[in-house]
């Protein structure tokens, strides 16, 4: 089971990392979501015990580790907040630059800087 879980974490993480390298900002966001999914899965899998849900456990029953669950919840919530913020950021980039492509953005920025420098020379 450990190999399988590690393998699944690895595949999810690798797919996320691959998407992070894309010029399309939406794919970058999806990549970040995948990477944080991989992290939460790794966290959950590192629980020390597996068994019944830790809700009103009876005496002697094998119970799943509640600590990793609480930590995972925190991680998921923060990951969610970050993902939504990134999404808003991408939307904002679209409204001010009319593109969501990193290559086009850096070209536009280079043009803008060259323009600024030209203006400065003129001044």
């Amino acid at each position, binding site marked *: 089971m450990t190999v399988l879980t590690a393998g699944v974490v690895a595949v999810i993480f690798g797919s996320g990392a691959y998407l992070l390298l894309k010029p399309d900002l939406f794919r970058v966001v999806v990549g970040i979501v995948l990477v944080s999914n991989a992290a939460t899965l790794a966290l959950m899998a590192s629980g020390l015990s597996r068994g019944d*849900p830790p809700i009103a456990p009876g005496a002697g029953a094998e119970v799943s580790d509640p600590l990793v669950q609480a930590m995972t919840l925190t991680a998921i919530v923060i990951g969610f907040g970050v993902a939504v913020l990134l999404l808003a950021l991408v*939307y904002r980039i679209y409204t001010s630059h009319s593109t969501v492509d990193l290559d086009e953005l850096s070209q536009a920025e280079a043009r803008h800087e060259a323009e600024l420098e030209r203006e400065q020379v003129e001044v």
Partner: protein
Amino acid sequence: MTGVLTEAVARLLLAPSLILAAAILVKGYSDVGDGFTAGVVAGLAVLLQYAAFGYRRVERVLPVRAAVGVALAGLALALAVAFVPLLWGAEAVTHYPRPAEHVVHVGTVELLTAVAFDVGVFLLVLGMSVGAVDAFARAAGERREP
């Protein structure tokens, strides 16, 4: 896309979703769920209204403009529960009643400061998600009708 059927379903689902959220919230201490989930569920219910009716009609019917206020109130409530005990020298996030003290029940709901803390989380998540949805819906609406 927003036909009569969508509107009817959205209208029908609003109250049950909110009740579900409330249930998840108050039962969080004794069963599955917590303030965060409840907040997202309630937020989804409001999101459905936006999808069905558009932001102008939603804003007329639901108090969505108070969203940020609700969120800040939630944050304030959580902060208060966490830090007010410092005033009498207890540690931060000390909950009452203390262990082994008697808990007041209202039906099957237990009255605990920990639940108040969760209510704060709920209000924050609800307010924030409705606020974000409203922002996006406005942006969409304004783009369509400049």
